[in-house]
């Protein structure tokens, strides 16, 4: 119930392509769904987040799509760049509770 399942484990995309990472959850009480980006040797940093009252949120080249009925959400990176190469984590939480992280997706963008 507390798990967040993330796929794929790794993703290789050409520069300019679209990167898509998917997450699924079971607990319908989750009400906050962030995506964190982690570069090698660094701590994770918040990239974009969504709450379940909207189905999509866009910030620059990054978009979260949220499907409440399917209990799924995804990160889309448009016009992927080599500088986007990093590990991406989805997460979920309930109000004041802890963040439950997905297992991570290692994205490599080749020029």
């Amino acid at each position, binding site marked *: 119930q507390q798990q967040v399942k993330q796929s794929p484990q790794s993703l290789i995309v050409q520069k300019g392509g679209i990167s898509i990472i998917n997450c699924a959850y079971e607990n319908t009480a989750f009400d906050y769904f962030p995506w964190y980006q982690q570069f090698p040797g660094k*701590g994770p940093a*918040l990239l974009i*987040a969504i709450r379940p009252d909207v189905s999509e949120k866009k910030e620059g080249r990054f978009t979260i799509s949220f499907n409440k009925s399917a209990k799924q959400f995804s990160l889309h990176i448009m016009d992927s760049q080599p500088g986007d190469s990093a590990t991406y984590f989805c997460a979920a939480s309930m109000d004041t509770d802890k*963040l439950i992280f997905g*297992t991570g997706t*290692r994205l490599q963008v080749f020029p």
Partner: protein
Amino acid sequence: DTAVSQTPKYLVTQMGNDKSIKCEQNLGHDTMYWYKQDSKKFLKIMFSYNNKELIINETVPNRFSPKSPDKAHLNLHINSLELGDSAVYFCASSRWTGENEQFFGPGTRLTVL
């Protein structure tokens, strides 16, 4: 002007030793956390403190003891280190419990030999 800092960055030690990792945040946040990231990059919360009070204590062996001398500092002391403790430990902070954006430190890579 680092927001969340940790020391040391790397820690190599023998099994059975006791070690501490220090964390400081200068963001004025009320809540601080410790996470463990294993070799497969899985991130799991260990503890959270709000204004020096323990809020979350996951099923972590009691060899791990967090200490918060004030709300800007959260240290992690580990007794009797085991091989399985090898991981990267991240400190994080947020404005308050429930303010979900968490700011992470750079991590401490602990290697137990």
